[in-house]
C-alpha cells in the first residue's frame, strides 16, 4: 500500500520533519566546526611565527671555561677585581692572607653584580644587602644559593681562572 504525502499518517510526517531538522543541525554544527577550526588554525599560523620572533636566538659562544683574570702584580692582599668570564662578570679576590679566590660575580638573589668588601672581608651585593663569605657561601640577606666558585691556577705571572 502506498500513500501520497497528504495521505501519510500524521505521526510519520512529524518524524520526517524532525529528521530533516536534525540533519540540518548536524550539518550546521559540522560547518561551524570546520569554519571555527579553520579560523583558529589560520590564527595559529599567524601567531606562531610572531611568538618565535619575540624570543631571541640562543647565543652560541657561551662555552668559555677558562680565562686569564689578572697578573700576579695586580692585586694587593685584601683587594679584588671584577673580570669578564665569557659574557658574565666574575670576581677575583686576594684575601688578607694572600690567597686567591674566584667566583661568579652575579648575585644569586636577583643577579646584581657583587663586590668585595675590604672592611668586612666578605662579598657584598649592594642591591639588596646580600652577604657571602670568601668561599661564595651565602651567609646573610636574601641570596638563596652560594655563588658559583671557580678554580684559580697561577701559571708564571698569570692568574688563570677555570670553571670547576
Amino acid at each position, binding site marked *: 500500500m502506498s500513500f501520497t504525502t497528504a495521505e501519510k499518517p500524521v505521526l510519520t510526517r512529524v518524524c520526517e520533519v524532525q529528521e530533516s531538522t536534525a540533519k540540518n543541525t548536524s550539518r550546521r554544527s559540522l560547518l561551524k566546526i570546520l569554519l571555527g577550526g579553520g579560523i583558529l588554525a589560520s590564527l595559529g599560523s599567524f601567531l606562531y611565527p610572531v611568538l618565535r620572533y*619575540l*624570543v*631571541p636566538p640562543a*647565543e652560541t659562544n657561551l662555552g668559555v671555561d677558562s680565562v686569564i683574570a689578572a697578573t700576579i702584580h695586580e692585586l694587593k692582599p685584601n683587594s679584588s677585581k*671584577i*673580570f*669578564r668570564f665569557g*659574557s*658574565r*662578570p666574575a670576581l677575583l679576590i686576594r684575601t688578607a692572607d694572600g690567597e686567591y679566590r674566584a667566583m661568579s*660575580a652575579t648575585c644569586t*638573589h*636577583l*643577579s*646584581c*653584580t*657583587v*663586590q668585595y668588601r675590604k672592611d668586612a672581608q666578605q662579598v657584598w*651585593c*649592594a*642591591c*639588596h*644587602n646580600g652577604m657571602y663569605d670568601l668561599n661564595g657561601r*651565602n651567609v646573610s*640577606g*636574601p*641570596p*638563596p644559593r652560594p655563588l658559583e666558585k671557580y678554580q684559580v691556577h697561577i701559571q708564571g705571572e698569570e692568574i688563570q681562572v677555570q670553571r670547576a
Partner: protein
Amino acid sequence: MSPAVRVQTWIDERFGWAEMIAPLQHKTVPRHRLSYWYFLGGITLFLFLIQIATGILLLLYYRPSANEAFESVQYITTQVKFGWLVRSIHSWSANLMIFTAFAHMFSVLFLRAYRKPRELTWVTGVVLLFLALGFGFSGYLLPWNTLAFFATKVGSEVAGQVPIIGPWIMVFLRGGPDVTGATLTRFFGFHVAVLPGLATLLLGVHVALVQRFGISVPPGLEQQWSSLPQPQREMRFFPNFFLRELMAWYVALAVLGLLAALFPWGLGTKADPFASAPAGIKPEWYFLSGFQALKLIPPKIFSIDGEVLGVLGFGAAGLVWLLLPFLEPKREGGGRPTFAIGVFALTFITAMTIYGYFGK
C-alpha cells in the same frame, strides 16, 4: 559671516554641530566640599600630554643603542639648546604623573567612586597605572647609566621568578639571557611605541566611561543630599569646571617648570656591564616599597625561594587591587573589605617607601 561661524556652519551642515557639543553642554560636575579631588584625574591626563610632547622632542636626538644612548642623552643635556630642560621636564613630569595617578586612585578608592556601575572605570584606571609603571621602568633604562642598568637587571630578574613562564618573560624582556644593548633596543620599542599605543587606547576607554556614567558623588554625601534638598549641587562642566581644571593645569605646569629648572635631572655614569653594583643603589621612589619588601623576605620559606614567594605575592596583590570593586558587598551596611584593603595598601606602601629611603 565671520570665519569662525562659517566653519561652524560648514561642520553643522555635515555632522550636526549641536549634537556634537550636546554632551558637553549637559555634562555637570557635583559640587561639594570634596570636589577638589576631581581635579586629580585631569592633572594626570595633562602630565601625560606633556610626556607625549617632550617625549617626541627627545626622540629627535636620542639614539637607542648601548654605544650611543648615554652619549646622545649627554648631548641633549649639554649641547642642544634647552635640551636639559626638555629632558628634565620629561623626567619630572613622569614622576609627578605617577604621583597624581596614585593620588587619583586612592581618592577614587576612599570616596568609593568605583561602585556599580563604575567597576570597569576602576579596572581600566588600574591597568593604566600598571602601564604608567611600565613606562617608568622602560624609560628609566634609556639613558643607559649604571643605576638604570642594575634596576633593569633586578626588575627583569623579578619577572623571571614567576613560576613556569618567568624565564620566557625574562628572555623576552631582555632580548637575551642578560641585560645588554638588545635590552635597550627592546625597551626603547616598548617605551615609544607599544606602551603609548596601549595607553592611548585605554585612556580613551577610561575617559569614555567617565563620560558615560558621569562623576560619582560620595555615598555619604548622597544620603545627606536626599534628606536635605538644596539647590546648587552641581556645576556645569563647560565652562565652569573646565576653566577651574585649566587653572589646576597651570599650577601643575608651574610646579613642573620650577622642579625641572631648579633640580635638573642628573645623568649619572655610563653603564658598565662588568662593574659591581654601586653602594646605596635604590630604585625610583614608586618601586621603592616593592624593593624594600623584597629585601626583607628571607631567602627560603618552606624550602621555596623567598623571591618567588615575593613575586607571587606582588602578583596576587595586583590582581586583588584590579578587582577591588567586585569585593564591595552588594548590600549597604555590610563590612567593607575594600576600605580596609585601601588603608592597608596605603600604609604598607608609605611605610615601606620611608623605610626603603632611610633604611640601610
